[in-house]
C-alpha cells in the first residue's frame, strides 16, 4: 500500500476540483459527502502503511512522482516516514471528522459546495507539506496552505471583519514565507540540494555553526508566521472570523501545526545551532505566557480558544527549542485532538445559541446539550493537564525536557509551570461559564443539542482525547520509538531519573489542579465576578499589540504612502508596511538626487567613474 501514497494527496485534490467545478450541480448535501469521502479515503489509504511503522517492520521510503526542476535536481517526491505518517493521520483523521461536522454546521449556506472545495484544498495542501521529501515541495505545500487558509478565513467575505482577517493572515504569513524562501536559498547554497535525505545525512559535516544558525533562525521566522509565535501571532485570534469548522481545522489539525512540524522535520539543523534553540525556546515560552494571560480575560468563547491555541503552540515551540522534538510533536498530536474537540464543541454551542459567542450570556447548558458537555469536559481536563488525560502527558514531557536542560532553562520551566496554572484557570472559567451555573441566555435563545453529524465527531475526538496520552508515558515510550527513524539519531533528552520524572509530573498536576480550584471557586457562583476595568480591559484587547502594530508600523506606513501615492494603501496593509516604510523613506531621500538635470547626472556619472578607476587601480595594486 505504500506505493499508493500519492493517492493520499491526489484524492482530496480531485475532491476539491470536483466541488469547485461541479459543486453547484451536485448541491447540498452530496458535495459535503464528496468532500468528506475524499479525506476519509485518504485516511484509509494511509492507515495500513502507518501501521507498518507501529509494528516496526517498515522502513521510511521516498516516492518519486515526477522530475520537477531537473536543473536544480529538484523532484516532486514524497517522503513516507513515521513523522509524515503521523501527521498524515492527524490531518486526514481530524480533517475527516471536521468535514463530517461541517456538513451539519454549514447546512443552508449558499456557497456550501465551495466551502468543501476549499476544505479539501486545505487538506491536500497540508498533505503536500507534511509528505514533502524536500524543502522545495514543502514550500509549495506551505504556500498552498497559506492560500487556502486565506480563502477559508475570508469565506464569508461580505463580512468586513472576515475579509480583513483573511487579509491579515495572508500578509503576516507572507513575512514568514520570506523567511522560508531565504532559508531555502541558504540551504541550497550550502548543500546544493533541497533533499531532506542528503541535507540531514550530511549536515553535521557540511554546515558551519553560523550557517546553521542563520538557516534555522530563518526557518523559525517562517514557523513563527504559520505557528503564530511572537511577534507574528496577531493573525490567529482574528482568524476565527471564518466558519467555526475552519477555526478547528486551522487551530488544530493543519495550518498552525505546520511551523512546529517543519522545525521538527529540520531537527538535525536545529541540533547544530544551539543559539537558535535558545531563541526558539525563549520565544515559545514568552508566547505561551502572553497568550495565556490574554486568554484569561477573553469573554468570547472562540477568542479564549484562539489564545489558548497560541499558548499551546508556545509549548510545542518550547519543546522544539529545547531539543525535545518528540515531545513537541507529541503535544502537537494530543493538541490536535483536544483543540479540534474544543472548537467543534464551541461551534456546537454557538450553533445551539444561534450565533451567540459571549460566555457571559451562556451558562447552564449542561442539561440542554449533554453530549457536547461531556466531550468538552474531557477536552477541558486534557488541556488543563489532568492525569491521565492526553494533555497531561504531552505537556509534562515538554516541561520535563526543559527542566532537564538545567541552568537558565529553569526559568523557562518556571514560565511553563505558570502557563500551566493559567491554562487550567482560563479553561475552567470557559467550561464553568458555558455549561454550569444558571442560564443567562437572552430571551429568544432556545438551545438544543446539535445533529448527529456534529456530535459523532465530538464523540470520536473525545475518545482520543481521553486515551491518546497513554501512547507515550515516561514509562512506556512507544511514541518515541515510533518517531525515532524520523529524527536521524538525535539523542533523547537525558538526565532524568524516574524519581525526578514523577516529582516533576506531580508538580505539573498539582499546579493544574490548583488553577482549576481557584477558577472553580471564582466562577461557580451565582453572581459572576465583575471583570472590567484596569487589567481586564487591557488584557481583553490583547494588551493592544494590534494597536501597537497599528501605531508603530501600520500607521506611519500609511502616512508615508498617502504622501507619496495613495494607490499604495491598496497594496499593502498591516505589518508589511513597516518594512516598506523604511525602504520607502530611503527611496524618498534619494529622489532629489534624480534631479532631472543632465549635468547633475553627468557629474554623478563622472564621480562614479573616477571612483571606480581609483578603486580598481587600488585593488589591482597599480598605484
Amino acid at each position, binding site marked *: 500500500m505504500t506505493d499508493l501514497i500519492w493517492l493520499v494527496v491526489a484524492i482530496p485534490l480531485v475532491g476539491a476540483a470536483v466541488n469547485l467545478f461541479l459543486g453547484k450541480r451536485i448541491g447540498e448535501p452530496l458535495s459535503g459527502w464528496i468532500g468528506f469521502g475524499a479525506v476519509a479515503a485518504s485516511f484509509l489509504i494511509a492507515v495500513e502503511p502507518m501501521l507498518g511503522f507501529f509494528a516496526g517492520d517498515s522502513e521510511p521510503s521516498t516516492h518519486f512522482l515526477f522530475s520537477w526542476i531537473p536543473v536544480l535536481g529538484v523532484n516532486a517526491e514524497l517522503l513516507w516516514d513515521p513523522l509524515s505518517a503521523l501527521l498524515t493521520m492527524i490531518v486526514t483523521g481530524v480533517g475527516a471528522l471536521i468535514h463530517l461536522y461541517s456538513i451539519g454546521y454549514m447546512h443552508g449556506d449558499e456557497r456550501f459546495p465551495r466551502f468543501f472545495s476549499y476544505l479539501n484544498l486545505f487538506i491536500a495542501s497540508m498533505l503536500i507539506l507534511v509528505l514533502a521529501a524536500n524543502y522545495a515541495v514543502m514550500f509549495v505545500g506551505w504556500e498552498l496552505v497559506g492560500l487556502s487558509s486565506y480563502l477559508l478565513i475570508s469565506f464569508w467575505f461580505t463580512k468586513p471583519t472576515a475579509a480583513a482577517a483573511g487579509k491579515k493572515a495572508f500578509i503576516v504569513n507572507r513575512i514568514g514565507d520570506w523567511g522560508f524562501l531565504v532559508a531555502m536559498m541558504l540551504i541550497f547554497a550550502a548543500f546544493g540540494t533541497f533533499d531532506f535525505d542528503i541535507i540531514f545525512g550530511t549536515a553535521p559535516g557540511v554546515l558551519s555553526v553560523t550557517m546553521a544558525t542563520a538557516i534555522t533562525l530563518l526557518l523559525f521566522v517562517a514557523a513563527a508566521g504559520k505557528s503564530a509565535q511572537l511577534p507574528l501571532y496577531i493573525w490567529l485570534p482574528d482568524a476565527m472570523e471564518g466558519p467555526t469548522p475552519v477555526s478547528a481545522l486551522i487551530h488544530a489539525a493543519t495550518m498552525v501545526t505546520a511551523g512546529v512540524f517543519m522545525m521538527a522535520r529540520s531537527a538535525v539543523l536545529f541540533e547544530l545551532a544551539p543559539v537558535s534553540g535558545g531563541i526558539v525556546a525563549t520565544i515559545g515560552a514568552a508566547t505561551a505566557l502572553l497568550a495565556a494571560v490574554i486568554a484569561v480575560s477573553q469573554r468570547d468563547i472562540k477568542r479564549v480558544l484562539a489564545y489558548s491555541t497560541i499558548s499551546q503552540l508556545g509549548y510545542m515551540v518550547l519543546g522544539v527549542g529545547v531539543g525535545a522534538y518528540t515531545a513537541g510533536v507529541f503535544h502537537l498530536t494530543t493538541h490536535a485532538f483536544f483543540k479540534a474537540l474544543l472548537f467543534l464543541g464551541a461551534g456546537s454551542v454557538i450553533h445551539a445559541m444561534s450565533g451567540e459567542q459571549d460566555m457571559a450570556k451562556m451558562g447552564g447548558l449542561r442539561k440542554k446539550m449533554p453530549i457536547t458537555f461531556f466531550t468538552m469536559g474531557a477536552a477541558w481536563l486534557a488541556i488543563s493537564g489532568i492525569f491521565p488525560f492526553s494533555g497531561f502527558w504531552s505537556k509534562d514531557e515538554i516541561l520535563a525536557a526543559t527542566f532537564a536542560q538545567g541552568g537558565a532553562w529553569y526559568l523557562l520551566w518556571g514560565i511553563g509551570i505558570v502557563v500551566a496554572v493559567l491554562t487550567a484557570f482560563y479553561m475552567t472559567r470557559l467550561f464553568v461559564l458555558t455549561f454550569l451555573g444558571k442560564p443567562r441566555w437572552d430571551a429568544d435563545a432556545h438551545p438544543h443539542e446539535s445533529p448527529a453529524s456534529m456530535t459523532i465527531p465530538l464523540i470520536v475526538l473525545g475518545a482520543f482525547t481521553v486515551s491518546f496520552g497513554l501512547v507515550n508515558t515516561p514509562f512506556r515510550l512507544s511514541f518515541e520509538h515510533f518517531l525515532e527513524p524520523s529524527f536521524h539519531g538525535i539523542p533523547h533528552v537525558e538526565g532524568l531519573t524516574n524519581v525526578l520524572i514523577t516529582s516533576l509530573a506531580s508538580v505539573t498536576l498539582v499546579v493544574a489542579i490548583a488553577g482549576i480550584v481557584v477558577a472553580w471557586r471564582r466562577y461557580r457562583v451565582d453572581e459572576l465576578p465583575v471583570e472590567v476595568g484596569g487589567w481586564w480591559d487591557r488584557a481583553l484587547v490583547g494588551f493592544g499589540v494590534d494597536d501597537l502594530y497599528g501605531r508603530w508600523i501600520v500607521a506611519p506606513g500609511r502616512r508615508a504612502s498617502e504622501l507619496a501615492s495613495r494607490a499604495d494603501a491598496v497594496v499593502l496593509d498591516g505589518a508589511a508596511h513597516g518594512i516598506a516604510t523604511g525602504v520607502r523613506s530611503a527611496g524618498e531621500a534619494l529622489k532629489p538626487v534624480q534631479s532631472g*538635470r543632465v*549635468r*547633475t547626472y553627468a*557629474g554623478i556619472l*563622472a*564621480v562614479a*567613474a*573616477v571612483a571606480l*578607476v*581609483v578603486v580598481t*587601480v587600488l585593488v589591482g595594486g*597599480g*598605484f
Partner: protein
Amino acid sequence: MSEVIVFVIFAAVALVGAISMVSARNPVYSAMGLLSTMFSLAVLYVVLDAHLVAAVQVIIYAGAVMTLFLFVIMLIGVDKADAYGRQVPAQRIMTFVVAIGFFAAIALAARSAWITGSGAFGDPEMNGTIEAVSDELFGTWTIVFLSTVMLLTIAAVGTIALAYFGAEVEDEEALL
C-alpha cells in the same frame, strides 16, 4: 630636439584651445577653441607618422564636423546669457575635483610606464601612410569598414526623422 619644440608648441595650443572651449561664454568662441585643438592634434599626428589620420582629422573633423557645429550655433542663435555653473552651486567645485582627480588618477597609475604591451608584435618601421593604413583597412578590417554603412544609414535616416518637419508631423496627432 625639433620634435620637442613642435610638441610643446602644439600641445600648448591644444590645451589652450580646449580650455578656452570649456570656458568661453560665447559658443562661437568655444567652437573656435575646439577647432584650434583639432588642428594642433593634426600636426601631432603628422609628427607621429600618422599621415592619413592627420589628413582625415583636418578634412572631416576640422572641416566637416566643426562647420556643422558652427552652422547649428548660427541656426539656433548665439545665446550669450549662457553662464556656466550658475544654477547648481556645487557643480563647479565637483567639476574641478572630478577633472583633476581623473587626470591625477591616470597620471599616477601610469607614472612608471604607459605602455606595458610588448612591442615585439609590431613593425618598428611602421609608417601610417595611406598605403599602410588602407592595406590594413581593406584587409583585416574590411568587414568593419562595411559595417559603417549601418552607422551612416542610421545617421541619415535619423537626421531626417528628427529634423525634417514636413506634413507627417500631423500624423502624430493620432498618437495623443
